[in-house]
């Protein structure tokens, strides 16, 4: 951090007047400071605190949005955990999606980053190509893939046929629906690639030179130098990617609508179905809010575990910067 203490040299004079002036200065700074961050404070209140507090209450109510919410204690959660036939399948779908997507995004992104971290002619073109899908609007991408997966006319089966491989019903089949949805997400692997690429280029060249002097081969260099130096970025990416994967919505909404059956009915989509889809008839807002809290809880627990055990594998650097 940059030193902020330049102003403090002015306080050599300890007269009462200076002190008074300084205090009025502090008051003024207090006001101006809060004025500058006012949008943020309003945002925090409206978009964070207010929803947290009200939904904390509504999770324990029976509420359809038309008549006032009725306190029902733990009923929502009891039904959720014990009786709702789609809750556990939904948790299973969510975890499955996260467990496949996150490692694949990280490993794929890292591999691509290593691949394009070279100074050969044309490397920029490849970086751009790999990153391109990330730029496109997600609904446009999903719509495109929906047709790619069309059993009769779609590209996926066309490619499989030319390779003489068995074709599939893709999003219409219980077995392939989840992998198909995951693949669409992995098409955006360019995002993690770019982040890892920036990280790779920040690794000091001296480290590589030293490794070369010591006679370390490329694989050894990667696992002993590159990867450890990337671990802080990797940790942040694990947390962010998990957060994103737990909240995947567009892929499901466009490609599968949770089906077939409950195979891809991730929690985000289930919450939407219960809380919003039947907007005009009977939204189960209290129940959906309870589900939101379950999802929130899962995300928090998983994130906390990740951070708790991060010190084992994250390189902390030499001294605090």
């Amino acid at each position: 951090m940059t030193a902020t203490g330049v102003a403090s040299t002015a306080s050599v004079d300890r007269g009462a007047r200076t002190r008074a002036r300084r205090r009025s200065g502090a008051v003024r700074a207090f006001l101006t400071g809060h004025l500058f961050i006012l949008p943020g404070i309003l945002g925090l209140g409206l978009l964070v605190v207010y929803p947290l507090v009200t939904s904390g209450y509504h999770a324990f109510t029976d509420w359809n949005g038309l008549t006032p919410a009725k306190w029902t204690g733990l009923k929502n959660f009891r039904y959720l955990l014990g009786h709702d036939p789609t809750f556990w399948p939904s948790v299973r779908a969510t975890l499955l999606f996260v467990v496949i997507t996150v490692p694949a995004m990280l490993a794929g992104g890292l591999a691509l980053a290593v691949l394009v971290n070279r100074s050969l002619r044309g490397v920029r073109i490849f970086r751009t190509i790999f990153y391109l899908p990330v730029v496109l609007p997600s609904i446009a991408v999903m719509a495109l893939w929906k047709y790619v997966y069309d059993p009769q006319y779609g590209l996926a089966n066309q490619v499989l046929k030319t390779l003489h491989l068995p074709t599939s019903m893709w999003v219409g089949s219980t077995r392939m629906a989840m992998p198909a949805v995951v693949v669409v997400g992995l098409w955006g692997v360019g995002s993690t690639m770019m982040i890892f690429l920036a990280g790779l280029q920040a690794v000091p060249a001296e480290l590589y030179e030293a490794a070369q002097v010591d006679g370390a081969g490329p694989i050894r260099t990667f696992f002993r130098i590159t990867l450890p130096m990337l671990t802080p970025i990797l940790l942040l990416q694990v947390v962010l990617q998990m957060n994103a994967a737990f909240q995947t919505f567009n892929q499901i909404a466009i490609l599968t609508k949770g089906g077939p059956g409950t195979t891809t009915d991730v929690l985000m989509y289930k919450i939407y179905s219960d809380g919003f889809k039947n907007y005009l008839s009977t939204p189960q807002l209290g129940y959906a809010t309870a589900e939101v809290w379950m999802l929130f809880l899962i995300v928090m627990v998983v994130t906390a575990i990740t951070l708790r055990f991060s010190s084992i594998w994250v390189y902390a650097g030499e001294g605090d910067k």
Partner: protein
Amino acid sequence: MTVRSGPGGLAMRVPLRASRISWYLLCAVLGVSMLLPLLWMLSIALKSGPDVNRIPPQFLPHEFQWSNFVDGPKMVDFYRLLANTVIVTVLSTIGSVVSSMLVGYGLARIKFRGRKFWFYAFTASIFMPQIVGLIPLQRLWIDLGLIDTWVPLIVPSFLGAPIFVFLARQYFLAIPFSLDEAAKIDGAGHLRIFWSIMIPLTRPVWITIAILSFQLSWNDYLNPLVYLQSAHRFTLSLGMAGFVSDSAGQATSQYNLFMATNLLYMLPPLLLFFFAQRHFMQGIGALGMNSK
């Protein structure tokens, strides 16, 4: 940070020529397979109706039917959707830049009681899942009579998204404090310093924020889905999602029209990407690395 061509690192000791050729081959294979869906989409967008329905499907169109780019958009009232999306996106982007720069400045450059508290509060809220806010906020906007307007899509961006505030603050911290001292001696207040000194100096970060915010808003689907009900107020994401579920399972001959429209929908972010590529990369770097 900027993405530059780094030192080769790993591959130095593999025989040079063989390594290069295999590198190009690998990149080409990967690149083509990543681009394949897009090329395929382009091909369908140019096909005629009977051409789309041909079995087995052909990869290339028999003849180019450019009229798809006129008839497709007509089917979903594309230009109205486009205008709606542009309005929402532009206002949101302005809101994000203005609010996050102001808040970032306040947190980084003004020493006041409580700024640490607010900084931690904002930073912690980065990790609150969006879904937690969705039901309470939808109810709030309904109670305020603002459901089915663009207000719920625009106003929140004027309230300083925590992630952008974080980026802006980091950038402001890196600017020498001697600059404001000098300006203060000349009698400039914070607003003046903010506007005439900081804004020009922090150009990279607010361009990055603008681009990220543009993307967020242009691509947003869940919020419009929850807040908008009348078709004439829909944004492109809603309109296109409706288009695809209309087309699916029905006459596949519409797919050429759909793909043509879909291409037009992709165009603005693509153009932005190609014209502001450097800033895109900076934004990615900033988001991924600013962990400290």
